[in-house]
């Protein structure tokens, strides 16, 4: 999640916050389109979105959305999501107490010589795994917060970062 969003303001000077929402939804056709359509139709932001079935028998999926907006807009987004018929639960992990947030990313870094050695060294520091290598390239795999992934990407850029694939944030509240 992008911390810097906390410092942004909208046209009226209202603070724009980033919130991580977790939705439990019926895994039926069109449910993702409904959620995305709500965001685009009403002009809300999606910073990141992940979706997968989490309860096969109950046919429930979990959608994790990171969105930004003023406090009023965030409340409105939650109320609008709650109105969708296939949405069973809406949790705002940002306000409901501490939560763990993780994202998985793959980075392809192409280079040789010092740059290549430096990339590998930094990957170790960041606890990224090498999941593919050729004589000119590495694919690193890393799991962490969105900020950590951003930071690693920034470091890799001058070292030959070619491509990046990110899953988007998955999040759970801490404790029971």
């Amino acid at each position, binding site marked *: 999640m992008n911390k810097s969003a906390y410092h942004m303001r909208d046209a009226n000077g209202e603070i724009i916050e980033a919130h991580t929402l977790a939705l439990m939804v*019926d895994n039926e056709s069109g449910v993702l389109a409904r959620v995305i*359509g709500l965001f685009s139709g009403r002009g809300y932001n999606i910073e990141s979105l992940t979706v997968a079935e989490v309860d096969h028998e109950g046919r429930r999926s979990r959608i994790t959305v990171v969105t930004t907006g003023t406090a009023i807009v965030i409340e409105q987004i939650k109320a609008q999501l709650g109105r969708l018929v296939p949405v069973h639960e809406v949790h705002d992990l940002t306000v409901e107490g501490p939560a763990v947030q993780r994202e998985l990313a793959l980075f392809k870094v192409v280079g040789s010589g010092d740059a290549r050695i430096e990339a590998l060294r930094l990957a170790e520091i960041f606890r990224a795994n090498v999941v593919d290598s050729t004589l000119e390239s590495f694919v690193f795999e890393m799991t962490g917060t969105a900020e950590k992934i951003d930071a690693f990407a920034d470091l890799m850029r001058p070292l030959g970062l070619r491509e990046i694939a990110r899953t988007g944030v998955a999040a759970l509240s801490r404790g029971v």
Partner: protein
Amino acid sequence: MRMSGAKMVVQALKDQGVEVVFGYPGGAVLPIYDELFQQNDIRHILVRHEQGAVHMAEGYARSTGKPGVVLVTSGPGATNAVTGLTDALLDSIPLVVLSGQVPTFLIGTDGFQEADTVGITRPCTKHNWLVKDTEKLAATIHEGFHVATKGRPGPVLIDIPKDIQFAEGTYVAPDAIRVPHYQPRTAPDMDAVAQLVQMIETAERPVFYTGGGVINSGPEASRLLREIADAANIPVTSTLMGLGAYPASGKGWLGMLGMHGLYEANMAMHGCDLMVSIGARFDDRVTGRLADFSPNSKKVHIDIDPSSINKIIHVDLGIVGDVGKTLAEVLRVWTERGRKVKTEALASWNRQVAEWKAVRCLTYKPSSSTIKPQYALERLEALTKDMDRYITTEVGQHQMWAAQFLGFEDPNRWMTSGGLGTMGYGLPASIGVQIAHPDALVINVAGEASWLMNMQEMGTAMQFRAPVKQFILNNERLGMVRQWQELIHGERYSHSWSESLPDFVKLAEAFGCKGIQCKDPADLDDAIMEMIRYDGPVIFDCLVEKHENCFPMIPSGKAHNEMLLGEAETQGVIETHGAALV
């Protein structure tokens, strides 16, 4: 019970208590039409255009409190229904629309008359379904009725591929389906109710701001509203959608509020110290400039839809609940606590309201040579108000004048397109109302331009003997557009004439109904009576003053207390910033 999908559709409708379906056949719904043919319980009204079917169902629904049902074919049949669906979504009208679809094995191949109906209608329905298995068809239809009518009502669409209609499956009755998870909260939070009661007890300048939610909640909600407002001596205003919830003859009645609302209503909203919004949603047509909206009031919002609360206006107290249930609790708690109010403060507040009323904001310049539209509506009101009367409207100036000059004593008597402002709504809606109330007087107050948009439905009125009265205030102008062009666009009347209008009397004859034209104020009463007495549909061409503007008016971007009362005040009133608003 095993049966075909098509038979299931008809059985499910019967089990849901459906008496009328508005529809139009086509290839993808032929099996359902075949089943309709072989039964007599459900009446089918054959429309002339699917948009007409949806508006008829809306009129039917709004005047009865029951969901309206529509049946259309795939592709163009479904896309023609889109405007009506959007209209029903914005005005919270319960509809169940069944559409045919190409067979499942053709979906996605650009088959003949294939459209992605659930994709197209996703943003304009409360929910929709594509049924891919006959075993699930009956349960889906029952769930459709549940979703359309529970919580904040709205339109749903069920898309049924043709092979699903032919295939056999097991029918399940409404009470045999698994309880749908969609169960919106209807009972209010009792702490919030207690807080509201306390606010009513201590308010010095309270106002009830009511909306379509009161009507949707059912007649009991209107009764409770009347009881509380009258007992507490609290003035009541209403949105366009809520007219009739509180009677026009009631002692607290302020009239409609908003852009073309009454002076007393808008001034009361601006000056109140407690605003209780009941089933209304702070539409931009109501609030005017937000920064100056009712600056000194505590605001309470009762709404069944949590997303309506704090959407536009931050309120001090939000109560999620059904209006009827909430008002019942409010009345109970307030009564238990001795029905206290600030009697003296309220008396002086009501005196203030009386002063505002004395401004007589609906005054217009009378004429003995041309029919003023306001005069036409005054006469219509005088001659019909004691009758068993239902009014629908089109969209434009005539709609606003109708809201200002007609009085409604009961809910469900006034059908208009509020949220979407759909020209072409009124004629089909009037037919839907008449089908539900065959013996009532049903009048569509229309503008000539709007009326032409769905005039083909006169054929439906004739075929099904719906004696609807089309009262057209013909100013040969897209009057509302003309008014804005005069006030905001330097009197450049770009394309706001109604050129090449038909001869409405001959048009009536062509449809086989009665046509009346009236242009002299002296003849108006007789002409209106002739319309009312005629046993059949009438097209009444009322030639009115062409350049009349609708007042009062809060120009876009202005506050409630910056209302214009008449022509003299209109020079240069709308600034560039306001002109950008619609």
